[in-house]
């Protein structure tokens, strides 16, 4: 059991490292859908969302594109873990060895 917990923690740390340290080096070229939309003249149909806190993975009010991306990655990774964990904690009963998902 301890071994499994270690795996889970290491996996999480690995995700955080990817999100924080590697994300600034990611390619900024348009992705597959964007490229198709640009090439075939429907990109302009896109409606920008105005509400988002960390739009386009750029943490606001931070200097430098690398750091703003890193922070976006870090926050996002923690948030996704938190949301998933909390969502499931409401649903999954304790002390049940139920069916596999």
């Amino acid at each position: 059991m301890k071994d499994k917990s270690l795996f889970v923690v290491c996996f999480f740390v690995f995700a955080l490292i990817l999100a924080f340290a590697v994300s600034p080096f990611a390619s900024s070229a348009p992705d597959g859908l964007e490229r198709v939309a640009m090439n075939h003249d429907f990109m302009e149909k896109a409606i920008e969302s105005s509400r988002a806190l960390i739009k386009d993975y750029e943490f606001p009010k931070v200097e430098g594109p690398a750091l703003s991306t890193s922070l976006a990655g870090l926050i996002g990774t923690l948030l996704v873990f938190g949301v998933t964990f909390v969502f499931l904690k409401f649903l999954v009963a304790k002390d049940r060895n139920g069916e596999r998902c």
Partner: protein
Amino acid sequence: MHIPDGFIRTDINIINYVVSASTLVYVSKKARSWPSEKVPLIGVTAAFIFAAQMLNFPILGGTSGHFLGAFFAAMMLGPLAAFLVMALILTVQCLVFADGGLVALGTNIVNMGVIGAIVSYYFFKVINVFFPKNQKGFLISVAISSWMSVVIASSACAFELAVSAASPFHIVFPAMVSVHSLIGIGEAIITVTAVGFILKIHPEMVSAWQDRNI
């Protein structure tokens, strides 16, 4: 492949919202009987997929691709938890990062959650029958299915775009499938590497490996 608002017709978005919501309700009901010790693994798998999705890699023609992770999640967690993970990731991406439109969120969840995770999982179950019942055979099926998950998800997207008159079918379908066939190679490489590694150190954590005889 995160579709912004404005590309897809509203009625298609509504249908996809209904499909996504229904699937989420079904999965949530099933989730009540999941073992609680699996929750951290589900959480970190979601975290990893989110992080990996940020790491765009260049492919041809001034275009990049990124990991989808839906099939990886299905291998680690089974199809239903994988759907849940993708739905939650896509929702966070939409609401916090404006990655994918809010009106189009149901469509994105259908493409990358229902099709990306659940359909690809069953595709895997079918083709895995034809390969040796060892880790090597398993990983070959994983490679093919990972690639296929991206291709069929993008095909669904192309179909939705065509029906929405964003672009004619004979143009948008080959365009989407060809670029995503390349991206799918990246998906296969990453998925096989990740699953292969976890199989070596903790095979019991790979749900699809544990269930391989079912």
